[in-house]
């Protein structure tokens, strides 16, 4: 069955080209991608993920607000018993913030220049349960 991924753009920056490129690439890799658009709050991201019952959440953050947004998302996922969802963060994330994000439970951080293929491979290798790679 196709892996289901929610691609979200939390925070206030209005640049979603990267998120759309990712959505398209994951589609071409045979995944079902729910694209939720710009300016999402952590509550909106988690609520949409719950209703869509996704295997993976991909957060695209370019604004530098990751240290505020990601902890809130992880907290809400826990509250809703959705700890099994694989959370990925992509965008402008400084090296020094990576460890802290991983400690929160983020499975991987993809910085600028990451090959699309590496993201696809990572998802296929790490999705638990439902998603079986095609």
């Amino acid at each position, binding site marked *: *069955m*196709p892996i*289901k991924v929610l691609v979200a753009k939390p925070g206030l920056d209005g640049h979603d080209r990267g998120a759309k490129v990712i*959505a*398209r690439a*994951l*589609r*071409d*890799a*045979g*995944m*079902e*991608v*729910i*694209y*939720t*658009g710009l300016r*999402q*709050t952590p*509550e*909106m991201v988690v*609520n*949409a993920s*719950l*209703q*869509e*019952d996704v295997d993976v959440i991909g957060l695209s953050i370019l604004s530098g607000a990751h240290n505020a947004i990601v902890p809130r998302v992880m907290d809400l996922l826990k509250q*809703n*018993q959705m700890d099994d969802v694989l959370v990925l963060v992509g965008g402008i994330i400084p090296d020094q913030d990576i460890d802290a994000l991983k400690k929160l439970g983020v499975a991987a951080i993809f910085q600028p220049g990451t090959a699309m293929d590496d993201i696809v491979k990572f998802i296929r290798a790490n999705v638990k349960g*439902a998603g079986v790679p*095609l």
Partner: protein
Amino acid sequence: MTRSVPVRVHRDLARAITAIENGYASFGDTLATLPARENGKASFVVGVTGPPGAGKSTLVDRLIEKFRAGGETVAVIAVDPSSPFTHGAVLGDRVRMQRHSGDTGVFIRSMASRESGGGLAPTTHDATALAAHAGFDVILVETVGVGQVELEIVAVADVVAVVTVPALGDSVQTIKAGLTEIADLFVVNMADRPGASRTALDLKHMVRESGRDVAVLQTIASEGTGIDDVMVALTAARASESSNAGRAVRFEVVRNIRDAAVRRALAVLDAPRGRSVLERLRAGELTRLEAREELLVYALAEVINAD
């Protein structure tokens, strides 16, 4: 009073739909995981269909707003196309409805059409039934952007709204068979664009000539203009004893026959008899038509033996 649905029910419903979608559980077993609805009232299922980019999602967003203002809970099942090549999909209908995200009276689920060609996913019918069982008062089912012949929405919805936009063709388009025959309501969206009145008029003529009572309304969904008229038409349709019950049953039977026939035919292709037909077709000993007839005979023989 504005009702809501516990988050727990949202989660159970979401997981139930996944189980059905992926074939992990039967519909009956999945139904048992959901609490039965409390108010005993039947859900009102509205189908929203029409060509890509006509404004279906935006209209759905506006309808959510209106039904919520009336105190009813709303589930949305929005279908977008799967790639026939990779099976992947980008499901983007939610983008237009995100302002309802924090409202626990609204449940929104995207579905990829997967292998279905009728404008819905193979399990949209079941997902709709699950949402009804979970107690949502109104269920809005949005099809993929359709052309003329993707009509499965008829089997799911109590009322079908066909959304179109100005200048998609002349009046001949309105007398063609298919999409225009299933509408209980026409919505000419983007009515501020040139040609809107003409499109509405062509549809009105078509409706009058067909002797059916189908409203033709104009909206600008992005601005919320004309939505009250749509609500009036939907409310009237909801109150009336719709003839759609008979239509839905017939459609459902046809769909089941077709699904069963395709399944049997595919099974025959894998059997020695079917392989021999394919080989003779490749070798030029059979025409395509002859091959088809031979396979159909085998497939039907399978049906008879199975029964």
